[in-house]
């Protein structure tokens, strides 16, 4: 779970770490699990499994480090290893990650010309949520971690086991895909200018 040197918590210490550092994140964990699985029962199972693993491997959790990031990493790994296999979601999306995207033609302000701030503000229904849910799981995940959960690039890199440059390029692509989706909603709603 971690490269940190192991320590041994006493039974009482372990219970305290579990209660004070792990349990407060149950809301965020369940929401993340639900946005990964789209299924209430699967989300529940995933969170339960994550907490069980967290308990079993509690000695590899260093007090004072970010418990939420540690738990999210376990949840993400459980999802990939166990749940994604069972569910009907495609195992891997075929896309290329270009870490040097800031120097490439991919850099543009595409989206601002035909998707307006007021249009987005007028999306009062589930458009944004649906747009987010429609993204492939790897793209959806980075947006959830960054925008809904407020993790830093560095924390995301640890949770996802990818370099920071990949976090940033994946986020960049995810945001463009999200805007594409919003743009098509805007058009179908007759919002386009």
């Amino acid at each position: 779970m971690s490269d940190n040197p192991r320590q041994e918590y006493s039974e009482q210490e372990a219970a305290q770490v579990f209660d004070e550092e792990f349990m407060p994140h149950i809301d965020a964990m369940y929401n993340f699990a639900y946005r990964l699985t789209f299924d209430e029962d699967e989300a529940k199972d995933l969170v339960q499994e994550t907490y069980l693993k967290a308990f079993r491997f509690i000695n590899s959790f260093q007090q004072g480090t970010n418990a939420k990031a540690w738990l999210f990493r376990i949840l993400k790994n459980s999802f990939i290893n166990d749940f994604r296999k069972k569910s009907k979601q495609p195992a891997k999306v075929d896309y290329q990650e270009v870490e040097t995207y800031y120097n490439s033609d991919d850099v543009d302000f595409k989206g601002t010309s035909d998707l307006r701030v007021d249009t987005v503000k007028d999306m009062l229904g589930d458009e944004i949520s649906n747009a987010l849910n429609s993204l492939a799981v790897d793209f959806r995940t980075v947006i959830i971690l960054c925008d809904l959960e407020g993790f830093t690039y560095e924390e995301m890199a640890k949770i996802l086991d990818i370099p920071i440059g990949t976090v940033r390029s994946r986020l960049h692509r995810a945001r463009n895909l999200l805007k594409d989706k919003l743009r098509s909603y805007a058009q179908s709603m007759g919002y386009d200018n």
Partner: protein
Amino acid sequence: MEKEPTNGEKKLTCGDKAACMQLLEMILDGQADDDQCAQLESKLEKCLPCFEYYHLEKTIREVMKSKCTNKEVPKDLLSNIREIIAKA
């Protein structure tokens, strides 16, 4: 920051897209320091595409935060976890 993009002083095309984009994304993602935030303000003053991009992205994040609201945690989840742990 909240000024309307009607300022005739703003350039209509961005002269330094790669640098602007990198800075904008870091700030929107809450990863920039004070220095970089100050840099952004001066960029937004001068550059219309950057100004528009910034406000669109900021709005999407705000709407997303308010719309992708928290799904309520099932009542038995907490007690289930306690049970599992007690048996572990």
